């Protein structure tokens, strides 16, 4: 007989799980955490490789010549930006037209629910300018996007200059099989959202925008450029998008391949790749990179203008130019060549990028782990929940029930509600009660069982019993859906009868609250980025993170704020309920 159908074996298994419940939970927790940390260890990762056949092995000789001219255009752009005090729409339209693109503009406006903490915006009005380079011989069915945000002040001028320089160079080539859209968006993410919504004719966030006059077919890939200096020392690739979505790994592979070919220093998460993976510092470096990526994804906000493309299944990434104190500088022509090479490769695509992974974690630009490797860590943490659910009382109870009850009540028992005793025939109920009364002493995490029992006499009114049971069932069901904190908290709260215990449990509960967890994460995040902040700065950052989270939800449809507010926070409140139940 099988393991679970043989009653003797099943009873033995249940007994084992019951006896060793807490140790197994602890072991699972440690294993889960260890597995996750082990992912950054280089022998456990895979080297990145290009999966898409069409973007194959052959490289083209890049010939972009006009880096200096691009920088001059950038300076012109900066001057006009200062003059108009915002986006120099007319100058941009004229310049793009002189380069042979079809230019269109889009106006948009949005009123934020409350003023932005970072940028002090409340009523946002702006204009996006975009020019379409039509493929000389191809039908207008597919497009690629190159965008640079127009930010106030002295930022990103070189990016716009390079964009215009590339537009002029691309216009003279005959080998484009897709249209290329050069987009300069105002108010970065808000403008980008307006443009995307206008392009795809969707209106999910209630923004007000004028319809787009010119269109280019379905967008296959997009790159966003952020360049604020004439020379760069390294290029940073930003992948995380809205709601933690990532572009196809092939886009990162493409970027890395060209970095290697052209010889530019490339980073991800702002951290440079190290070769000494077997040393402690090398390993911790990789862990930091991976943790940064995981935390950025968890925050749910788009970390570059590209983040909003991902929702439309357009693979997009942001390339940031970083100028730090390094000897070897890369000039604008080289950056232009890198982009030219990437676009020529993307030009060869026949279908959307889909051959490589969509869910992955990168410990450096050349190593990654896919979801098949990092999910077991979370699976192990989920096993703890199952173990908790199926802990002592419930399992023996289940066994009793299995043997003596009707199928219908068994189904109810399998509902997954801890502490719910099976309903049904009175005779069966007595048996279960009898079994149930023996529970409380051993029930870890099911302390409520003994509280349920007194309220449910077989002789009490059926209706009242039904209602009470239903209410308790609803509350207990919510308990089932908590994270791994629940396991530990439950084990603590289960034995919380004495006041000192209660105080300790209360303290732990406060520490593990969503608010405190977020505060710690903010400090941890800053530590990982090697920019540690003082407590006051950290507190201000924390407040801005909260407000930004709410704004992200209102502006772009980020899901983190509703998730925390509607799921995590009520569950945490329920724990107080458990803690102080009389």
């Amino acid at each position, binding site marked *: 007989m099988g393991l679970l159908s043989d009653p003797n074996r099943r009873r033995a298994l249940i007994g084992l799980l019951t006896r060793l419940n807490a140790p197994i939970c602890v072991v699972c927790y440690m294993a889960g955490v260890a597995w996750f940390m082990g992912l950054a260890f280089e022998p456990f990762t895979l080297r990145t490789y290009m999966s898409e056949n*069409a973007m*194959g092995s052959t*490289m083209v000789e890049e010939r972009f010549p006009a880096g200096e001219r691009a920088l001059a255009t950038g300076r012109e752009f900066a001057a006009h930006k200062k003059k108009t005090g915002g986006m120099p729409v007319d100058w941009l339209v004229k310049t793009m037209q002189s380069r042979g693109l079809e230019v269109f503009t889009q106006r948009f406006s949005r009123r934020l629910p409350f003023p932005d903490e970072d940028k002090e915006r409340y009523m946002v009005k702006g204009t996006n300018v975009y020019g379409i380079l039509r493929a000389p011989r191809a039908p207008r069915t597919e497009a690629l996007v190159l965008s640079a945000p127009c930010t106030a002040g002295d930022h990103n001028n070189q990016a716009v200059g390079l964009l215009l320089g590339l537009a002029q160079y691309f216009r003279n080539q005959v080998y484009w099989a897709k249209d290329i859209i050069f987009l300069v968006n105002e108010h970065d993410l808000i403008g980008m959202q307006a443009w995307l919504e206008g392009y795809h004719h969707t209106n999910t966030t209630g923004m007000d925008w004028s319809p787009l006059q010119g269109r280019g077919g379905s967008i296959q890939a997009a790159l966003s450029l952020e360049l604020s200096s004439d020379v760069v020392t390294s290029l940073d690739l930003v992948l995380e998008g809205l709601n933690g979505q990532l572009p196809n790994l092939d886009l990162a592979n493409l970027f890395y391949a060209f970095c290697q070919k052209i010889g530019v220093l490339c980073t991800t998460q702002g951290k440079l790749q190290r070769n000494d993976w077997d040393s402690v510092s090398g390993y911790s470096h990789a862990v930091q990179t991976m943790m940064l990526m995981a935390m950025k994804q968890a925050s749910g906000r788009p970390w570059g203008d590209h983040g909003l493309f991902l929702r439309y299944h357009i693979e997009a990434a942001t390339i940031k130019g970083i100028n730090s104190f390094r000897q070897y500088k890369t000039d604008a022509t080289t950056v232009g060549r890198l982009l030219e090479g990437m676009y020529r490769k993307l030009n060869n695509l*026949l279908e959307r990028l889909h051959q490589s992974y969509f869910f992955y974690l990168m410990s450096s630009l050349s190593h990654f782990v896919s979801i098949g490797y990092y999910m077991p860590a979370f699976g192990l943490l989920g096993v703890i929940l199952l173990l908790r659910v199926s802990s002592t009382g419930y399992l023996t109870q289940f066994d009793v029930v299995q043997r003596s009850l009707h199928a219908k009540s068994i189904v109810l028992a399998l509902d997954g509600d801890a502490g719910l005793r099976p309903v049904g025939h009175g005779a069966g109920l007595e048996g279960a009660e009898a079994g149930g009364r023996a529970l409380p002493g051993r029930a870890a995490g099911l302390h409520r069982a003994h509280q349920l029992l007194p309220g449910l006499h077989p002789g009490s009114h059926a209706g009242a019993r039904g209602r009470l049971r239903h209410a308790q069932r609803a509350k207990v069901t919510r308990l089932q859906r908590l994270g791994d904190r629940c396991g530990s908290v439950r084990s603590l709260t289960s034995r919380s009868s004495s006041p000192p215990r209660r105080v300790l449990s209360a303290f732990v509960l406060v520490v593990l609250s969503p608010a405190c967890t977020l505060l710690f994460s903010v400090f941890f995040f800053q530590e990982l980025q090697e920019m540690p902040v003082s407590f006051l700065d950290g507190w201000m950052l924390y407040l801005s993170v909260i407000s930004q989270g709410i704004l992200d939800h209102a502006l772009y449809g980020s899901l983190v704020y509703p998730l925390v507010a509607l799921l995590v926070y009520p569950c945490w409140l329920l724990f107080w309920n458990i803690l102080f139940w009389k």
Partner: protein
Amino acid sequence: MKILGLLSLLATHLSANSVNIEENAGQFFSSGHTNNWAVLVCTSRFWFNYRHVANTLSVYRSVKRLGIPDSHIVLMLADDMACNHRNPKPATVFSHKNMELNVYGDDVEVDYRGYEVTVENFLRVLTGRLPPSTPRSKRLLSDDRSNILIYLTGHGGNGFLKFQDSEEISNVELADAFQQMWQKRRYNELLFIIDTCQGASMYERFYSPNLMALASSQVGEDSLSHQPDLAIGVHLMDRYTFYLLEFLEDIHPASKSNMNDLFKVCPKSQCVSTPGHRTDLFLRDPGSALITDFFGSVRKVEITMETVNLTDPIEQVEQNFVNEDLQKESYSYVDQLPVSEIIHQTLAGEDAPGSIVAVGGNGLVMPPVFHFYFTVTRHDVATRQEEPD
């Protein structure tokens, strides 16, 4: 005296010449074919398979240069690389990097293009089972005196060749198609060249006579591409065909290179894969088969004042079996048209085998077609028969 000496010299000279003429004329049709056809197929599409189209076009170019006209070439290209949107040099297909050689040229005639290149169309072309509305340029109108060159390139595997990313032709199908061709008397000799990965598996199953096959790689090996062009961004040619093209560039219509030289093209040091060939089904000695027998369409001309007596043009090759001395039965085509009957009936009324009747009055060079008919005995029309005396 002197005049006598001169006359005797002249006589010997003439007799020597006539012996020479007989030899030369005897070599005219030593291969037994009178016309040449070529079927050149590229089976893969998409921009990154540029090299397969370049392969096929370079063989097309060589074949055309050596004399086979477009009307006798069936060119099947599965994708249009010259006019692909991604081609930085539109209307060209290059086979050498730095754009040295444009194999597309001005006068390419593609017979099957794009999605018309399918397994079904290919087999129909080979076997001749095409609907009556098919234009002549899309037909392989070969007969039993045709030497056919078949060149296939694309992506292949062990026992199959992939057409257009959606279907495959297997080696069994191909062998059966060739057998159909033999039974329908659609070829005299056939040279089959394939440049794909594991290409040797495609000729393993052949069983029809008069076939010679070459492949660029053995089973389990990959055929590799030769060189990328950094301006176009793709690999331009496959190695085997690149070296084949180099070899063919040295061939001119009068060259006497034979098949043994073709087998030496692209050794393992250049090709990385091991090219293979198969000659056991070929009835002549490969050393006696000229390259131009298959790759070119050569019209030999000899000027003479002599009457040439054409006897059996086909020389039987010695069957060199190492271990066994099998008596291999040699086959020839059955007489279709009893010309001898008709002619003898109209002229004399009785058959006179073995003699050359001068139809038309001049007997300088008699096409062997007529010669065959004259030497066939009447009552053996419907059955296979021994080689005529």
